């Protein structure tokens, strides 16, 4: 029986070790969570090996011939054993709970000094994400973070519940209409990742994604500067098509070279928009279901831009598209 138990243990151990169970670790939260994950995994592997070992051994050792008419030993219980298998799991459960609670608290802690972290507002809507950087007065369809700087994300949703998840960061949080929710991330590894919506939010749920970039200090400063320049060009008060495009999250679904977006959920605007009438483009935006582009699904593109954007903003957006679409840089 010990042999079977050991074998089962080795197999589960091997499976645990050689298969990359978890995605890349790209945040301090991921380190905390993975610690608990492996602690629980080891306990579970031991318990499972024990159960599997005992049942296989018992099944083999105590199997009765088909015509056997005898009964087994009339054992009704064993107080000692029963106390053990109540006490040991209780201890394990307490240990797992304590570790989990500590890891949770550490994962969600922000520095006391507000200068040491940034806050980003995340807004989810069917089926796109938008990220507002209050300190930079900037809104974008992409989440850009500075490596090793903790961020506090304040989330909300416009229509139904969505959930923000970046597997490499391990952190997940629902964005709920009507309230603000919160999560904390300290990215530790430069690179590009995906925000994945994990709460069923309608037909566009599988494609509701946005990009995340974790940048080095220098790259981050460059990105900030680029944004300030863009804002300067537009001038105050006047609606600027480029920033409307960014703020409305169009870039999370459409490719448009001028805006630097490469998403493929909706048609490539660089190839479809050139040659279209302004009116036609406007209709595509305010009433996306009026005509469905070939090869795409209805109800994926949000249908509420008419309410969300002012008339001036819509006009600016259309003008911007007419101007830049197709102009490959």
């Amino acid at each position, binding site marked *: 029986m010990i042999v079977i138990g050991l074998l089962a243990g080795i197999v589960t151990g091997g499976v645990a070790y050689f298969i990359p169970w978890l995605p890349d670790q790209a945040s301090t939260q991921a380190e905390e969570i993975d610690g*608990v994950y492996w602690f629980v995994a080891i306990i579970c592997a031991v318990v499972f090996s024990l159960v599997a070992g005992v049942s296989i051994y018992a099944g083999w050792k105590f199997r009765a011939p088909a015509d056997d008419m005898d009964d087994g*030993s009339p054992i009704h219980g064993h107080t000692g054993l029963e106390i053990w298998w109540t006490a040991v799991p209780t201890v394990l459960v307490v240990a797992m*709970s304590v570790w989990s609670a500590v890891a949770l608290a550490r994962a969600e802690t922000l520095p006391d000094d507000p200068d040491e972290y940034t806050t980003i507002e995340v807004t989810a809507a069917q089926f796109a994400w938008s990220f507002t950087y209050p300190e930079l007065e900037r809104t974008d369809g992409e989440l850009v973070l500075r490596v090793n700087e903790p961020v506090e994300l304040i989330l909300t949703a416009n229509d139904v519940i969505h*959930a923000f998840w970046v*597997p490499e960061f391990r952190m997940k949080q629902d964005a709920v209409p009507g309230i603000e929710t919160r999560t904390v991330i300290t990215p530790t590894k430069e690179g590009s990742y995906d925000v994945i919506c994990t709460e069923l939010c309608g037909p566009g749920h599988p494609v509701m994604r946005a990009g995340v970039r974790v940048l080095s200090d220098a790259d981050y400063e460059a990105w900030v500067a680029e944004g300030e320049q863009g804002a300067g060009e537009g001038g105050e008060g006047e609606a600027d098509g480029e920033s409307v495009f960014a703020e409305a999250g169009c870039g999370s679904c459409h490719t448009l070279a001028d805006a630097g977006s490469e998403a493929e959920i909706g048609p490539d605007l660089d190839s479809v928009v050139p040659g279209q009438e302004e009116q036609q483009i406007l209709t595509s935006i305010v009433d996306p279901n009026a005509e469905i582009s070939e090869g795409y699904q209805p109800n994926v593109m949000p249908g509420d831009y008419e309410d969300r954007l002012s008339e001036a903003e819509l006009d600016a957006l259309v003008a911007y598209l007419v101007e830049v679409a197709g102009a490959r840089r």
Partner: protein
Amino acid sequence: MSATLHAPAPRRTGIRRWTAGGWLRALWTTPLAFLLATGLVAGARAALGYEPLLAQQPYITTLMVMVPIGFLAGIGAFDYWARYVSGRPTIPDDHASHGAHSWKDYFKVNTDHKVIGTQYVVTTVVFFIVAGLLAMFMRAELAEPGMQYVDPQAYNGLFSVHASLMIFLFIIPAFAGLGNYVIPLMIGAPDMAFPRLNALSFWLLPIAGLMMLSSYFIGAFGAGWTNYAPLAVQQPDGNLMFQMGVQWAGASSIMTALNFLVTIITMRAPGMTFWRMPLLVWANFATSTLVVIATPFVAGSQFFILFDRVLHTNFFDPGGGGYVIAYQHIFWFYSHPAVYIMMLPGFGIVSEVISVFARKPIFGYRLMALSLMAILILGFSVWAHHMFVSGMADWLRVPMMVTTMVIAVPTGIKVFSWLATLWEGRIHFKTPMLFALGFVSMFVIGGLSGVYLGSVPIDIHVSDTYFVVAHIHYVLFGGSLFTIYAGFYYWFPKMTGRMYNETLGKIHFWLTFVGFNATFFPMHWIGTRGMPRRVADYDPMFGNWNMAISIASFALGASTLVFLYNMIVSWRRGEPAPSNPWRALTLEWQVSSPPPIFNFDEIPQVVGSPYEYGVRGARHAILNGKPVQEGREAAPMEETVP
């Protein structure tokens, strides 16, 4: 089938055939209710000056309430009570509606718990097949990344209806059906406490099931079986069919649960103390308590959504001051206990099966019963573990994590006790035993992945991913369904009077066991790696795994055909079953297969524990003057009925 104590009701002729309770009357009362509902909605809206007269939402809702009532009145589910309420003399019960004399009686309102049990089991198996086919469509779509056969909204409809049927129309009522058949027999009672209520609770089921299925005609509900607000409010009108379907199915389970509770508390045979009850009876007692307390919450949650949709209330609309997360609290306050509603009866079945086929007393009987009660109580204190990332009050997370993990302790006690029951037994690997042992190992995996999900930090990562899909299938398929299969095979001889084919049973087990693991185990991995659940399309990096999973799932689906073939052919042509083929001690095996119409010719006298295998001279009960002891000696091969 069984012995006839009462002649079948005399055939009615002429107009009486159309006015007496039955399908002919339902043929006109159902359309009548339809017309009444139409008139009611149109009339009320005309009076208020609303346009259009038959606005879809109020109209559908009214139909979903009135048409089933018309149908139930037609087939005669209310006849006795209607006479009683209206002050007319009730028809003295001649037991004409009791027991089945031909197959046709299974399609009528019948008050015999054995007929009702069979009706339940067959109906639920039908819904099981339908829901399983929906899963096959899903796996076909998911086999490759990108969209192939359905569009995303249709896909959302597939998994929503799949889960709703499996939960509300298969697992929960399948247990109620098995319990209906065997509980009165096990406690030595002639029937359930309220036979007419029992009949009514069965007939609500096909109504609920057809309602959920027919939602496809007006746009299937695609917000999942969890139907979270506010997405539910946006859904096509098929969503109303889910909400009303849950009401009818919920009413059915509440009625049955009350019936079980009263039956178990008041109708035990003399000498059948609580500490002498078989564990299945204990399990049903605990489950029924859960159902009675928790089910009104899911009914409420669906009514609130219905009101938000139809009456424009603002329970969950933040625009009108509603609180979105409130829905989840109410919903999970039922739906977590529902996990135990779908699990505890299985624990009961497995305890019976393991003890009988290991030829040993169940290990630690009292602790087994007490751990059921512990799970029942703890089960109400953990609902928010489904909401760790929902944005609910932060402080609730750690306490609910602790209670969740603590449930592992009584559950562990049960698993270890089953294993200890095997120790030094004489194990016979008949099909029910294979499923019971398969259940123990699969359920341990489901339970352990539950511990993962119970830990808040781990849950933050894996919640709403395929890891959760794997977890619930290990619990509800490897757990509940395996025990249901064990129960079907175990009591098949008792219910049908025939033996099933053992070889086919074993083939079915191994195909299911292998297919199940090949389908669901990899889902843990793709979930942890980053594949969210409830998606019609996914990252191509998961393409190969999904293809493999889909192929395995088709094999798993095919294994069901072996089961169906075995059940149908054996029911018609299997070898006649002796009264006690398993040499079991519990009372249902001491009467003929199938049992006589009122179960026991003479009320049994219970004198000891039901599990005294191998104990010299111990007895469970005295029946017809003969002691029921040591399965072997007491197993009479002759039928007890003339």
